């Protein structure tokens, strides 16, 4: 069995190097390792002393996992985590490959893993998380899972596997009473995070939780929160932590959703660490975190700042639009087949924009139609991404100092590459 593990690790690593050189396929090495040694993931994870914390939900998984890992590290624990987006079994196995010894041992006290909600049930069986943090259920998953109810049922199964801690967003229609809809487990501590009504209600589109029909139990916001966002100014939030501590934290960017992510991460650290939890280390950890890749990120191109808003799904786009301080002076939009059905743009409030300079990608004309009915002028539509990008960059320097690009994930990757930003993490110009 050890020989088999070693083979899996070696072959997986070799493939990983090869995949890196070809520039892609980060899940492939994990896939191959799992094929050679199917129990590799389960066995390696089971040996981690403080066990697994699983983070799932529609939106903010990467951000929150990153925050939680930083908070736990600030408390002196060695953390194994999966890189942003590597949240399927193969992705987690790939991440393990880069950190295990040839015998398959991992030098970590605790694993903090972002888990794709679609694979949540399978991953939960495999990973046996002691603690589960669920962030939200939003309608973005329509094309993959078709119905919020189905996503809710999948997340309920993940929640039910937690043995020590379950941390839920009390502002989410589906999560506010999820604990009452899963089988009880003796010893499982349930706690909540949220925001004060003065912040959550006027957020316009609230926290953009999917509508829930039928057996509506508790009202969103009605459960007492272990960690509550009580104030928010720009990218700084104040968190009230039970029983009686207030801390100020830095967020990756403006926006209530980031503040809620921070509250979720703090509530989870509090649940996991118990007596060892020190609120001031939350501030310290979040202060030190770099801007999360691809969200509110600023690229510098030829001395100009370009703010990137990632259009992952309706909820994230709405929250990001709402967090704009004023209508951007120069805006560019690129959306392609990575967003197969942009129907939901009809549910989006685009009033944060007063014009759009250029639109590209295969969905460009569908956006142009929407903007046409909204009387939002569109400068030009060009399906040739390079040409459209060139025309946008050639616009005179904006007085506000920065341009804004609203991109879906695929276009963000492509455009970063065109602009010469090669590395996924970090974001330095080549």
């Amino acid at each position: 069995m050890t020989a088999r593990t070693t083979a899996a690790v070696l072959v997986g690593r070799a493939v990983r190097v090869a995949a890196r050189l070809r520039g892609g396929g980060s899940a492939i090495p994990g896939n191959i390792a799992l094929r050679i040694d199917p129990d590799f993931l389960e066995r390696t994870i089971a040996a981690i002393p403080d066990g697994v914390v699983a983070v799932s939900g529609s939106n903010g998984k990467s951000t929150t996992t990153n925050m939680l890992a930083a908070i736990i590290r600030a408390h002196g624990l060695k953390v194994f985590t999966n890189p942003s987006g590597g949240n399927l079994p193969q992705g987690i196995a790939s991440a393990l490959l880069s950190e295990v010894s040839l015998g398959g041992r991992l030098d970590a006290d605790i694993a903090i893993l972002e888990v794709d909600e679609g694979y949540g049930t399978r991953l939960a069986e495999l990973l046996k998380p002691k603690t589960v943090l669920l962030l939200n259920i939003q309608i973005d998953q329509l094309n993959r899972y078709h119905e919020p109810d189905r996503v809710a049922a999948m997340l309920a199964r993940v929640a039910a596997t937690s043995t020590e801690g379950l941390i839920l967003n009390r502002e989410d229609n589906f999560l506010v009473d999820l604990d009452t809809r899963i089988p009880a487990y003796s010893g499982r501590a349930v706690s909540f995070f949220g925001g004060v009504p003065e912040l959550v209600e006027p957020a316009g589109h609230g926290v953009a939780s999917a509508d829930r029909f039928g057996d509506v139990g508790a009202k969103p916001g009605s459960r007492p929160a272990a960690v509550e966002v009580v104030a928010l100014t720009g990218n700084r939030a104040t968190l009230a932590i039970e029983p009686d501590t207030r801390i100020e934290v830095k967020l990756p960017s403006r926006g209530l959703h980031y503040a809620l992510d921070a509250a979720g991460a703090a509530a989870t650290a509090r649940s996991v660490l118990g007596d060892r939890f020190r609120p001031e280390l939350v501030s310290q950890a979040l202060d030190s975190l770099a801007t999360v890749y691809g969200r509110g990120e600023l690229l510098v191109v030829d001395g100009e700042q370009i703010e990137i808003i990632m259009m992952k799904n309706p909820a994230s786009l709405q929250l990001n639009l709402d967090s704009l301080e004023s209508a951007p002076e120069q805006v560019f939009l690129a959306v392609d087949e990575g967003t197969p059905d942009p129907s939901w743009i009809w549910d989006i409030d685009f009033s944060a924009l007063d014009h759009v300079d250029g639109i590209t990608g295969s969905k460009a004309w569908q956006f142009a139609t929407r903007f046409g009915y909204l009387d939002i002028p569109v400068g030009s539509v060009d399906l040739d991404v390079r040409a459209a990008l060139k025309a946008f960059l050639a616009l005179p320097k904006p007085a506000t100092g920065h341009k804004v690009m609203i991109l879906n994930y695929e276009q963000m990757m492509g455009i970063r590459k065109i602009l010469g930003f090669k590395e996924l993490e970090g974001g330095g110009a080549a």
Partner: protein
Amino acid sequence: MTAATPKGASRGALRILHLFPRLLGLNGESGNVEILRLRSERRGLPVEVLSYDGPDDAAVRARFDDADLVFIGSGPVSAELIAHPLVTAVAGDLRALAADGRPFLAVGAGFQLLGQTVTLESGEVLEGASLFPVATRHGGTRVVGDFVLDSPRIGPIVGFENRGSFVDVGPHGTLGRVVYGRGNSETPGEEGFWEDNLLGTHMHGPLLANNPALADSLLDTARLRRGLEYTDPAPESLRLVDESARQSRATIAAAPLSE
């Protein structure tokens, strides 16, 4: 949910009844109502939108007979089950509106509930409101992807298909022949139902965005029945959006994709 309408505007206004916007409208479908309203208003004919979500909206319920055009959207099965008794409760009035020639646009679950029966995956059969002479059966593989039709009445129709059900429309007229996608039956053939004033389809989302000719056809049926005129039938602002819609149709039809 009711769109802002000036108070005294209702006399000469076109009235759109939007059924169950909260329950049935998962895919940006309220966009259809917005498009109908804007296409009429930009031509100088004001629109009043009446939103009905259930018995609590008694004031709107009392005005069903004012409706010149009716829209009902799609939703997940969970919402369809909740909407079912609510639809049944108003089925008689809806049948009367349909028989009186008021145009209906019904999408997905809304289309199914306005049909004769809906057979669920469990085998349970829901009685529909029987406006449309069609029967729905849930089950089979779900199709998700671009959807391209050819309509004998208005030419190419383009949009998105996301369904896990089949519709038997018998010998009746349809929205169009399937060029890309699945349509009503197991083997691609025809899509939806379109006869006289009744249009039902599983082209979900804001199908009128890509297909303004459909919107105009519904509006014409509605306003001509009332003798209402446009003051500016072809405003420049609609020419621009119609050009964008034409480009959208061309882009999708040139390279349609499915999951």
